[in-house]
Protein backbone atom coordinates (compact mmCIF):
# COMPACT_ATOMS: atom_id res chain seq x y z
CA UNK A 1 0.00 0.00 0.00
CA UNK A 2 2.77 2.38 1.04
CA UNK A 3 4.66 1.43 -2.10
CA UNK A 4 1.59 2.25 -4.23
CA UNK A 5 1.26 5.67 -2.62
CA UNK A 6 4.98 6.27 -3.13
CA UNK A 7 4.66 5.16 -6.76
CA UNK A 8 1.88 7.69 -7.28
CA UNK A 9 4.13 10.60 -6.29
CA UNK A 10 7.46 9.36 -7.65
CA UNK A 11 8.45 10.03 -11.25
CA UNK A 12 9.62 6.61 -12.46
CA UNK A 13 11.25 7.94 -15.61
CA UNK A 14 13.29 10.39 -13.54
CA UNK A 15 14.40 7.62 -11.17
CA UNK A 16 15.42 5.45 -14.14
CA UNK A 17 17.49 8.29 -15.63
CA UNK A 18 19.06 9.02 -12.26
CA UNK A 19 20.08 5.37 -11.91
CA UNK A 20 21.55 5.55 -15.41
CA UNK A 21 23.68 8.58 -14.43
CA UNK A 22 24.76 6.75 -11.29
CA UNK A 23 26.15 3.93 -13.42
CA UNK A 24 28.50 6.32 -15.29
CA UNK A 25 32.10 6.68 -14.20
CA UNK A 26 32.06 10.48 -14.75
CA UNK A 27 29.48 10.88 -11.97
CA UNK A 28 30.98 8.35 -9.60
CA UNK A 29 30.68 9.20 -5.91
CA UNK A 30 27.68 11.52 -6.24
CA UNK A 31 24.69 10.97 -3.94
CA UNK A 32 21.16 10.30 -5.26
CA UNK A 33 20.18 13.88 -4.39
CA UNK A 34 23.18 15.31 -6.24
CA UNK A 35 22.48 13.13 -9.24
CA UNK A 36 18.89 14.39 -9.15
CA UNK A 37 20.12 18.00 -9.14
CA UNK A 38 22.50 17.18 -11.98
CA UNK A 39 19.78 15.53 -14.04
CA UNK A 40 17.81 18.80 -13.92
CA UNK A 41 20.64 20.42 -15.86
CA UNK A 42 20.52 17.93 -18.73
CA UNK A 43 18.50 18.13 -21.92
CA UNK A 44 17.32 14.93 -23.52
CA UNK A 45 16.94 14.39 -27.27
CA UNK A 46 15.98 11.37 -29.36
CA UNK A 47 17.93 11.07 -32.62
CA UNK A 48 16.60 8.94 -35.47
CA UNK A 49 18.70 6.51 -37.46
CA UNK A 50 21.16 8.40 -39.66
CA UNK A 51 20.44 11.77 -38.04
CA UNK A 52 23.49 13.99 -37.62
CA UNK A 53 24.44 15.20 -34.14
CA UNK A 54 27.23 17.45 -35.38
CA UNK A 55 29.70 17.72 -38.22
CA UNK A 56 33.43 18.16 -38.16
CA UNK A 57 34.06 21.92 -37.86
CA UNK A 58 30.81 22.75 -35.98
CA UNK A 59 31.49 24.66 -32.78
CA UNK A 60 31.22 22.30 -29.80
CA UNK A 61 28.78 23.39 -27.12
CA UNK A 62 27.78 20.32 -25.16
CA UNK A 63 28.80 17.04 -23.64
CA UNK A 64 26.77 14.14 -25.03
CA UNK A 65 25.91 11.01 -23.06
CA UNK A 66 24.43 8.02 -24.90
CA UNK A 67 21.46 6.79 -22.89
CA UNK A 68 20.36 4.25 -25.47
CA UNK A 69 21.14 3.36 -29.08
CA UNK A 70 24.44 3.65 -30.95
CA UNK A 71 26.39 6.68 -32.18
CA UNK A 72 29.03 6.55 -34.87
CA UNK A 73 31.98 8.94 -34.81
CA UNK A 74 33.71 9.52 -38.16
CA UNK A 75 36.41 11.78 -39.51
CA UNK A 76 36.50 13.39 -42.95
CA UNK A 77 39.14 11.63 -45.03
CA UNK A 78 40.68 12.46 -48.38
CA UNK A 79 38.11 12.73 -51.17
CA UNK A 80 35.32 13.46 -48.72
CA UNK A 81 35.15 9.86 -47.55
CA UNK A 82 34.22 9.40 -43.92
CA UNK A 83 36.63 7.28 -41.94
CA UNK A 84 35.06 5.55 -38.94
CA UNK A 85 36.66 6.47 -35.62
CA UNK A 86 34.49 4.77 -33.04
CA UNK A 87 31.04 3.42 -32.32
CA UNK A 88 29.61 4.34 -28.96
CA UNK A 89 26.86 2.58 -27.04
CA UNK A 90 24.81 3.25 -23.90
CA UNK A 91 26.83 4.79 -21.08
CA UNK A 92 29.45 6.29 -23.39
CA UNK A 93 30.00 10.03 -23.42
CA UNK A 94 31.74 12.27 -25.92
CA UNK A 95 32.27 15.92 -26.81
CA UNK A 96 33.36 16.70 -23.26
CA UNK A 97 35.99 19.20 -24.46
CA UNK A 98 33.10 21.57 -25.29
CA UNK A 99 32.70 21.98 -21.52
CA UNK A 100 36.21 23.41 -21.36
CA UNK A 101 36.53 25.42 -24.57
CA UNK A 102 34.26 26.23 -27.50
CA UNK A 103 36.26 24.96 -30.43
CA UNK A 104 35.26 23.22 -33.66
CA UNK A 105 34.47 19.53 -33.38
CA UNK A 106 37.23 17.36 -34.79
CA UNK A 107 34.89 14.57 -35.90
CA UNK A 108 31.38 13.90 -37.20
CA UNK A 109 28.74 12.22 -35.03
CA UNK A 110 25.59 10.52 -36.29
CA UNK A 111 23.03 8.13 -34.85
CA UNK A 112 23.50 4.60 -36.18
CA UNK A 113 20.11 3.61 -34.83
CA UNK A 114 17.34 5.36 -32.88
CA UNK A 115 19.25 6.80 -29.91
CA UNK A 116 18.45 8.83 -26.83
CA UNK A 117 21.16 11.25 -25.73
CA UNK A 118 21.58 13.54 -22.74
CA UNK A 119 23.20 16.92 -23.37
CA UNK A 120 25.02 19.05 -20.80
CA UNK A 121 25.99 22.65 -21.65
CA UNK A 122 28.85 24.80 -20.43
CA UNK A 123 26.46 27.43 -18.98
CA UNK A 124 24.70 24.67 -17.05
CA UNK A 125 28.04 23.31 -15.85
CA UNK A 126 28.85 26.83 -14.62
CA UNK A 127 25.57 26.82 -12.71
CA UNK A 128 26.51 23.47 -11.20
CA UNK A 129 29.99 24.74 -10.27
CA UNK A 130 28.51 27.77 -8.48
CA UNK A 131 25.36 26.21 -7.05
CA UNK A 132 26.56 22.69 -6.29
CA UNK A 133 30.39 22.83 -6.11
CA UNK A 134 30.64 19.22 -4.93
CA UNK A 135 29.01 17.97 -8.13
CA UNK A 136 31.04 20.38 -10.29
CA UNK A 137 34.34 19.36 -8.73
CA UNK A 138 33.51 15.65 -9.20
CA UNK A 139 32.82 16.22 -12.92
CA UNK A 140 35.87 18.43 -13.46
CA UNK A 141 38.14 15.98 -11.61
CA UNK A 142 36.94 13.18 -13.82
CA UNK A 143 37.46 15.29 -16.95
CA UNK A 144 41.00 16.16 -15.84
CA UNK A 145 41.77 12.47 -15.24
CA UNK A 146 40.31 11.57 -18.61
CA UNK A 147 42.40 14.24 -20.37
CA UNK A 148 45.49 13.13 -18.53
CA UNK A 149 44.94 9.50 -19.56
CA UNK A 150 44.36 10.46 -23.19
CA UNK A 151 47.47 12.62 -23.24
CA UNK A 152 49.55 9.87 -21.66
CA UNK A 153 48.26 7.39 -24.21
CA UNK A 154 48.96 9.80 -27.08
CA UNK A 155 52.48 10.47 -25.79
CA UNK A 156 53.16 6.74 -25.44
CA UNK A 157 51.75 6.04 -28.88
CA UNK A 158 53.93 8.74 -30.47
CA UNK A 159 56.99 7.56 -28.58
CA UNK A 160 56.35 4.01 -29.83
CA UNK A 161 56.16 5.30 -33.43
CA UNK A 162 59.18 7.52 -32.89
CA UNK A 163 57.37 10.70 -33.93
CA UNK A 164 57.57 14.17 -32.42
CA UNK A 165 54.42 15.55 -30.82
CA UNK A 166 52.50 18.01 -32.98
CA UNK A 167 53.14 21.69 -32.10
CA UNK A 168 49.46 22.30 -31.50
CA UNK A 169 47.01 20.03 -29.74
CA UNK A 170 43.84 19.48 -31.67
CA UNK A 171 40.47 19.72 -30.04
CA UNK A 172 38.85 16.42 -29.30
CA UNK A 173 35.45 15.70 -30.72
Amino acid at each position, binding site marked *: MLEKIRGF*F*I*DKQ*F*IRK*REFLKSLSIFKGLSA*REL*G*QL*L*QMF*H*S*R*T*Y*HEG*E*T*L*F*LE*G*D*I*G*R*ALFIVESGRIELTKNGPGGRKQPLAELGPGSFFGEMALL*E*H*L*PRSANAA*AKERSVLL*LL*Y*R*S*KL*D*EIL*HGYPHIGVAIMTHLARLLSSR*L*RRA*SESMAARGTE*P*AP*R*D*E*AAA
Partner: protein
Amino acid sequence: MAEPAPSRRVPFSWPALFAAGIVVYLLFRIHAVLIPFVLSFALAYLVDPLIHNFEARGLKREHIVLTLYLVIAVAIGVAANFLLPAMTSELSLLQGRAASYYTGIQDTFAKLQAEVAQRLPWGRHIVEKMSLKMYNPLMEHLPKLPTYILGLVPLFSLLFLVPFITFFMLMDSKKFMQQAIDRCPGRHVEQVLHISSEIDTSLGNYLRGIMITAGIIGAASYLGLLALEVDYALAIAALSGVSSFIPYVGAIVGALAGGLVAFFQYHGFAAPLKVVALFTCIRLADEALVQPLISRHAMHLHPMVFLLALMVGGKLFGFIGLLFGVPAACVIKALIGVAWDYYTSQTQAAGHLSPEGVEVPYI
Protein backbone atom coordinates in the same frame (compact mmCIF):
# COMPACT_ATOMS: atom_id res chain seq x y z
CA MET B 1 51.83 19.59 -41.06
CA ALA B 2 48.32 20.41 -39.93
CA GLU B 3 45.95 21.62 -42.61
CA PRO B 4 44.65 25.16 -42.11
CA ALA B 5 41.09 25.21 -40.82
CA PRO B 6 38.59 25.88 -43.58
CA SER B 7 37.06 29.33 -43.37
CA ARG B 8 33.40 29.29 -42.36
CA ARG B 9 30.94 32.08 -42.91
CA VAL B 10 28.79 33.24 -40.06
CA PRO B 11 25.25 32.17 -41.03
CA PHE B 12 23.22 35.26 -41.99
CA SER B 13 19.94 35.42 -43.80
CA TRP B 14 17.99 38.51 -44.89
CA PRO B 15 14.65 36.63 -45.01
CA ALA B 16 15.21 35.43 -41.43
CA LEU B 17 16.02 38.97 -40.32
CA PHE B 18 12.92 40.27 -42.14
CA ALA B 19 10.75 37.58 -40.52
CA ALA B 20 12.19 38.44 -37.09
CA GLY B 21 11.39 42.11 -37.73
CA ILE B 22 7.78 41.28 -38.61
CA VAL B 23 7.43 39.14 -35.48
CA VAL B 24 8.81 41.97 -33.29
CA TYR B 25 6.42 44.46 -34.96
CA LEU B 26 3.41 42.18 -34.42
CA LEU B 27 4.40 41.62 -30.80
CA PHE B 28 4.58 45.38 -30.37
CA ARG B 29 1.10 45.82 -31.87
CA ILE B 30 -0.46 43.26 -29.54
CA HIS B 31 1.69 43.91 -26.48
CA ALA B 32 -1.32 44.83 -24.32
CA VAL B 33 -2.72 41.31 -24.78
CA LEU B 34 0.64 39.78 -23.98
CA ILE B 35 1.03 41.50 -20.59
CA PRO B 36 -0.53 38.68 -18.49
CA PHE B 37 1.51 36.12 -20.42
CA VAL B 38 4.76 38.02 -19.93
CA LEU B 39 4.03 38.44 -16.21
CA SER B 40 3.13 34.74 -15.94
CA PHE B 41 6.32 33.80 -17.73
CA ALA B 42 8.33 35.87 -15.23
CA LEU B 43 6.47 34.32 -12.30
CA ALA B 44 6.98 30.80 -13.68
CA TYR B 45 10.68 31.59 -14.03
CA LEU B 46 10.85 32.60 -10.39
CA VAL B 47 9.03 29.57 -9.07
CA ASP B 48 10.71 27.03 -11.33
CA PRO B 49 13.91 26.57 -9.23
CA LEU B 50 11.74 25.59 -6.26
CA ILE B 51 9.97 22.99 -8.38
CA HIS B 52 13.32 21.78 -9.74
CA ASN B 53 14.47 21.27 -6.19
CA PHE B 54 11.60 18.88 -5.48
CA GLU B 55 11.90 17.23 -8.88
CA ALA B 56 15.52 16.43 -8.01
CA ARG B 57 14.12 14.22 -5.25
CA GLY B 58 12.20 12.24 -7.85
CA LEU B 59 8.73 13.74 -7.32
CA LYS B 60 6.35 14.25 -10.25
CA ARG B 61 6.17 17.83 -11.54
CA GLU B 62 2.37 18.00 -11.67
CA HIS B 63 2.08 16.92 -8.02
CA ILE B 64 4.67 19.48 -6.95
CA VAL B 65 2.86 22.29 -8.82
CA LEU B 66 -0.53 21.30 -7.38
CA THR B 67 0.89 21.10 -3.85
CA LEU B 68 2.64 24.44 -4.29
CA TYR B 69 -0.60 26.12 -5.39
CA LEU B 70 -2.43 24.62 -2.41
CA VAL B 71 0.27 25.84 -0.03
CA ILE B 72 0.22 29.33 -1.62
CA ALA B 73 -3.60 29.42 -1.42
CA VAL B 74 -3.45 28.56 2.29
CA ALA B 75 -0.64 31.10 2.83
CA ILE B 76 -2.65 33.81 1.04
CA GLY B 77 -5.68 32.91 3.16
CA VAL B 78 -3.66 33.18 6.37
CA ALA B 79 -1.91 36.37 5.21
CA ALA B 80 -5.22 37.91 4.17
CA ASN B 81 -6.51 37.15 7.63
CA PHE B 82 -3.73 39.28 9.09
CA LEU B 83 -3.10 41.78 6.30
CA LEU B 84 -6.67 42.60 5.24
CA PRO B 85 -7.64 44.11 8.61
CA ALA B 86 -4.40 46.13 8.56
CA MET B 87 -5.07 47.29 4.97
CA THR B 88 -8.71 48.06 5.76
CA SER B 89 -7.77 50.11 8.80
CA GLU B 90 -5.11 51.97 6.78
CA LEU B 91 -7.63 52.69 4.00
CA SER B 92 -10.33 53.86 6.41
CA LEU B 93 -7.72 56.05 8.11
CA LEU B 94 -6.82 57.52 4.72
CA GLN B 95 -10.49 58.04 3.91
CA GLY B 96 -11.05 59.82 7.23
CA ARG B 97 -8.02 62.02 6.93
CA ALA B 98 -8.13 62.68 3.18
CA ALA B 99 -9.98 65.98 3.64
CA SER B 100 -7.55 67.18 6.32
CA TYR B 101 -4.59 66.17 4.10
CA TYR B 102 -6.09 68.13 1.24
CA THR B 103 -6.54 71.27 3.34
CA GLY B 104 -3.15 70.60 4.97
CA ILE B 105 -1.46 70.66 1.57
CA GLN B 106 -3.36 73.84 0.65
CA ASP B 107 -2.34 75.50 3.93
CA THR B 108 1.29 74.45 3.55
CA PHE B 109 1.45 75.80 0.02
CA ALA B 110 -0.27 79.05 1.07
CA LYS B 111 2.22 79.49 3.93
CA LEU B 112 5.13 78.69 1.65
CA GLN B 113 3.85 81.15 -0.95
CA ALA B 114 3.44 83.88 1.66
CA GLU B 115 6.96 83.26 3.04
CA VAL B 116 8.54 83.30 -0.42
CA ALA B 117 6.61 86.41 -1.49
CA GLN B 118 7.58 88.23 1.68
CA ARG B 119 11.24 87.30 2.05
CA LEU B 120 12.65 87.00 -1.42
CA PRO B 121 13.11 89.75 -3.99
CA TRP B 122 10.77 89.17 -6.88
CA GLY B 123 9.07 86.72 -4.47
CA ARG B 124 5.59 87.51 -5.74
CA HIS B 125 6.70 86.84 -9.30
CA ILE B 126 8.25 83.50 -8.28
CA VAL B 127 5.08 82.51 -6.40
CA GLU B 128 2.89 83.32 -9.39
CA LYS B 129 5.11 81.28 -11.69
CA MET B 130 5.24 78.38 -9.21
CA SER B 131 1.48 78.42 -8.75
CA LEU B 132 0.99 78.37 -12.47
CA LYS B 133 3.44 75.55 -13.13
CA MET B 134 3.21 73.28 -10.07
CA TYR B 135 0.62 74.13 -7.52
CA ASN B 136 -2.43 74.61 -9.72
CA PRO B 137 -2.03 71.40 -11.74
CA LEU B 138 -1.30 69.46 -8.52
CA MET B 139 -4.40 70.77 -6.79
CA GLU B 140 -6.44 70.04 -9.89
CA HIS B 141 -5.31 66.43 -9.93
CA LEU B 142 -5.46 65.76 -6.18
CA PRO B 143 -9.28 65.49 -5.89
CA LYS B 144 -9.18 63.07 -8.83
CA LEU B 145 -6.87 60.71 -6.91
CA PRO B 146 -9.67 58.22 -6.01
CA THR B 147 -10.60 58.07 -9.73
CA TYR B 148 -6.98 57.33 -10.63
CA ILE B 149 -6.83 54.60 -7.98
CA LEU B 150 -10.06 53.13 -9.39
CA GLY B 151 -8.41 53.23 -12.80
CA LEU B 152 -5.95 50.65 -11.49
CA VAL B 153 -8.79 48.19 -10.76
CA PRO B 154 -8.50 46.43 -14.16
CA LEU B 155 -4.93 45.60 -13.11
CA PHE B 156 -6.40 43.51 -10.28
CA SER B 157 -7.78 41.12 -12.89
CA LEU B 158 -4.13 40.24 -13.48
CA LEU B 159 -3.98 38.97 -9.90
CA PHE B 160 -6.30 36.15 -10.96
CA LEU B 161 -5.24 35.76 -14.56
CA VAL B 162 -1.47 35.61 -13.97
CA PRO B 163 -1.49 32.71 -11.42
CA PHE B 164 -3.92 30.85 -13.71
CA ILE B 165 -1.63 31.13 -16.77
CA THR B 166 1.45 30.49 -14.60
CA PHE B 167 -0.11 27.22 -13.43
CA PHE B 168 -0.25 25.89 -16.99
CA MET B 169 3.20 27.23 -17.79
CA LEU B 170 4.65 25.42 -14.78
CA MET B 171 2.78 22.22 -15.58
CA ASP B 172 3.67 22.06 -19.26
CA SER B 173 6.85 24.12 -19.72
CA LYS B 174 9.03 21.00 -19.74
CA LYS B 175 6.80 19.29 -22.31
CA PHE B 176 6.86 22.38 -24.56
CA MET B 177 10.64 22.60 -24.25
CA GLN B 178 11.03 18.90 -25.03
CA GLN B 179 8.75 19.20 -28.07
CA ALA B 180 10.79 22.18 -29.31
CA ILE B 181 14.04 20.22 -28.88
CA ASP B 182 12.62 17.16 -30.64
CA ARG B 183 11.40 19.25 -33.60
CA CYS B 184 14.69 21.12 -34.00
CA PRO B 185 16.95 19.64 -36.72
CA GLY B 186 19.47 17.31 -35.07
CA ARG B 187 22.57 19.20 -36.15
CA HIS B 188 21.26 22.52 -34.80
CA VAL B 189 20.01 21.22 -31.44
CA GLU B 190 23.38 21.90 -29.86
CA GLN B 191 23.51 25.56 -30.97
CA VAL B 192 19.83 26.30 -30.25
CA LEU B 193 20.04 24.82 -26.77
CA HIS B 194 23.28 26.71 -26.19
CA ILE B 195 21.50 30.02 -26.89
CA SER B 196 18.49 29.08 -24.76
CA SER B 197 20.80 27.97 -21.91
CA GLU B 198 22.64 31.31 -21.99
CA ILE B 199 19.38 33.29 -21.98
CA ASP B 200 17.88 31.06 -19.31
CA THR B 201 20.86 31.51 -17.00
CA SER B 202 21.12 35.31 -17.29
CA LEU B 203 17.38 36.05 -17.32
CA GLY B 204 16.58 33.62 -14.50
CA ASN B 205 19.27 35.11 -12.27
CA TYR B 206 18.11 38.66 -13.03
CA LEU B 207 14.41 38.00 -12.35
CA ARG B 208 15.08 36.06 -9.16
CA GLY B 209 17.44 38.85 -8.08
CA ILE B 210 14.87 41.66 -8.45
CA MET B 211 12.18 39.60 -6.70
CA ILE B 212 14.46 38.98 -3.71
CA THR B 213 15.42 42.69 -3.69
CA ALA B 214 11.77 43.76 -3.81
CA GLY B 215 10.86 41.37 -0.98
CA ILE B 216 13.74 42.53 1.23
CA ILE B 217 13.12 46.24 0.57
CA GLY B 218 9.39 45.79 1.22
CA ALA B 219 9.95 43.91 4.50
CA ALA B 220 12.69 46.28 5.74
CA SER B 221 10.53 49.33 4.87
CA TYR B 222 7.55 47.90 6.76
CA LEU B 223 9.57 47.14 9.89
CA GLY B 224 11.35 50.52 9.74
CA LEU B 225 8.13 52.50 9.27
CA LEU B 226 6.48 50.55 12.09
CA ALA B 227 9.42 51.43 14.34
CA LEU B 228 9.08 55.12 13.37
CA GLU B 229 5.31 54.83 13.97
CA VAL B 230 4.45 56.24 10.54
CA ASP B 231 0.87 55.69 9.34
CA TYR B 232 0.12 53.47 6.32
CA ALA B 233 3.35 51.51 6.92
CA LEU B 234 2.03 48.49 5.02
CA ALA B 235 0.85 50.47 1.98
CA ILE B 236 4.09 52.48 1.77
CA ALA B 237 6.21 49.33 2.19
CA ALA B 238 4.18 47.54 -0.51
CA LEU B 239 4.57 50.56 -2.82
CA SER B 240 8.31 50.68 -2.13
CA GLY B 241 8.70 46.91 -2.66
CA VAL B 242 6.77 46.90 -5.95
CA SER B 243 8.66 49.98 -7.19
CA SER B 244 11.93 48.14 -6.55
CA PHE B 245 11.15 46.05 -9.63
CA ILE B 246 12.40 49.16 -11.41
CA PRO B 247 15.94 49.34 -10.08
CA TYR B 248 16.84 52.33 -7.84
CA VAL B 249 13.23 53.53 -7.78
CA GLY B 250 11.96 51.55 -4.76
CA ALA B 251 13.84 53.49 -2.08
CA ILE B 252 13.07 56.86 -3.73
CA VAL B 253 9.33 56.13 -3.92
CA GLY B 254 9.34 54.83 -0.35
CA ALA B 255 11.19 57.91 0.93
CA LEU B 256 8.85 60.30 -0.93
CA ALA B 257 5.60 58.60 0.08
CA GLY B 258 6.76 57.89 3.65
CA GLY B 259 8.21 61.40 4.01
CA LEU B 260 4.95 63.04 2.89
CA VAL B 261 2.84 60.91 5.22
CA ALA B 262 5.23 61.59 8.13
CA PHE B 263 5.14 65.33 7.38
CA PHE B 264 1.35 65.54 7.56
CA GLN B 265 1.18 63.12 10.48
CA TYR B 266 3.71 64.89 12.72
CA HIS B 267 3.51 68.44 11.24
CA GLY B 268 7.26 68.95 11.16
CA PHE B 269 10.44 68.05 9.33
CA ALA B 270 12.02 65.76 11.96
CA ALA B 271 9.83 62.72 11.14
CA PRO B 272 10.18 63.02 7.33
CA LEU B 273 13.96 63.30 7.76
CA LYS B 274 13.93 60.08 9.81
CA VAL B 275 11.94 58.39 7.04
CA VAL B 276 14.39 59.61 4.39
CA ALA B 277 17.29 58.38 6.58
CA LEU B 278 15.53 55.00 6.91
CA PHE B 279 15.17 54.57 3.14
CA THR B 280 18.76 55.77 2.58
CA CYS B 281 19.95 53.08 5.03
CA ILE B 282 17.77 50.46 3.29
CA ARG B 283 19.18 51.45 -0.11
CA LEU B 284 22.80 51.36 1.18
CA ALA B 285 22.25 48.01 2.94
CA ASP B 286 20.72 46.66 -0.27
CA GLU B 287 23.74 47.85 -2.25
CA ALA B 288 26.30 46.57 0.26
CA LEU B 289 24.77 43.33 1.50
CA VAL B 290 22.02 42.06 -0.81
CA GLN B 291 23.20 42.99 -4.29
CA PRO B 292 26.65 41.33 -4.02
CA LEU B 293 24.93 38.08 -3.07
CA ILE B 294 22.16 38.03 -5.64
CA SER B 295 23.90 39.63 -8.59
CA ARG B 296 27.08 37.57 -8.31
CA HIS B 297 25.91 35.26 -11.05
CA ALA B 298 23.43 37.64 -12.70
CA MET B 299 24.11 39.50 -15.90
CA HIS B 300 25.79 42.87 -15.43
CA LEU B 301 24.65 45.81 -17.51
CA HIS B 302 26.41 49.14 -17.80
CA PRO B 303 24.36 51.86 -16.00
CA MET B 304 23.92 53.70 -19.31
CA VAL B 305 22.57 50.57 -21.03
CA PHE B 306 20.42 50.05 -17.97
CA LEU B 307 18.91 53.55 -18.24
CA LEU B 308 18.49 53.24 -21.99
CA ALA B 309 16.67 49.92 -21.54
CA LEU B 310 14.34 51.50 -18.97
CA MET B 311 13.62 54.52 -21.17
CA VAL B 312 13.06 52.56 -24.36
CA GLY B 313 10.90 50.01 -22.49
CA GLY B 314 8.86 52.77 -20.85
CA LYS B 315 8.40 54.65 -24.13
CA LEU B 316 7.32 51.59 -26.10
CA PHE B 317 5.31 49.62 -23.56
CA GLY B 318 4.57 51.97 -20.64
CA PHE B 319 4.73 50.59 -17.08
CA ILE B 320 5.25 47.00 -18.22
CA GLY B 321 8.06 48.25 -20.44
CA LEU B 322 9.73 49.74 -17.36
CA LEU B 323 9.51 46.37 -15.63
CA PHE B 324 10.74 44.30 -18.51
CA GLY B 325 13.08 46.73 -20.30
CA VAL B 326 16.09 45.53 -18.33
CA PRO B 327 15.34 41.77 -18.65
CA ALA B 328 14.92 42.34 -22.39
CA ALA B 329 18.30 44.05 -22.44
CA CYS B 330 19.70 41.00 -20.60
CA VAL B 331 18.35 38.72 -23.34
CA ILE B 332 19.81 40.95 -26.07
CA LYS B 333 23.17 41.00 -24.26
CA ALA B 334 23.10 37.19 -23.95
CA LEU B 335 22.38 36.91 -27.69
CA ILE B 336 25.22 39.31 -28.52
CA GLY B 337 27.44 37.27 -26.19
CA VAL B 338 26.53 34.07 -28.05
CA ALA B 339 27.19 35.74 -31.43
CA TRP B 340 30.54 37.07 -30.20
CA ASP B 341 31.37 33.67 -28.76
CA TYR B 342 30.56 32.13 -32.13
CA TYR B 343 32.77 34.65 -33.91
CA THR B 344 35.70 34.17 -31.51
CA SER B 345 35.33 30.39 -31.76
CA GLN B 346 35.73 30.76 -35.53
CA THR B 347 38.84 32.90 -35.22
CA GLN B 348 40.27 30.64 -32.49
CA ALA B 349 39.77 27.73 -34.85
CA ALA B 350 42.11 29.37 -37.35
CA GLY B 351 44.79 30.21 -34.82
CA HIS B 352 43.93 28.54 -31.55
CA LEU B 353 45.96 30.03 -28.70
CA SER B 354 47.12 27.33 -26.34
CA PRO B 355 47.44 28.17 -22.65
CA GLU B 356 50.83 29.00 -21.19
CA GLY B 357 53.00 25.99 -20.40
CA VAL B 358 51.56 23.77 -23.14
CA GLU B 359 55.05 23.21 -24.61
CA VAL B 360 56.22 21.33 -21.49
CA PRO B 361 56.20 17.59 -22.28
CA TYR B 362 53.72 15.34 -20.52
CA ILE B 363 55.61 13.51 -17.76
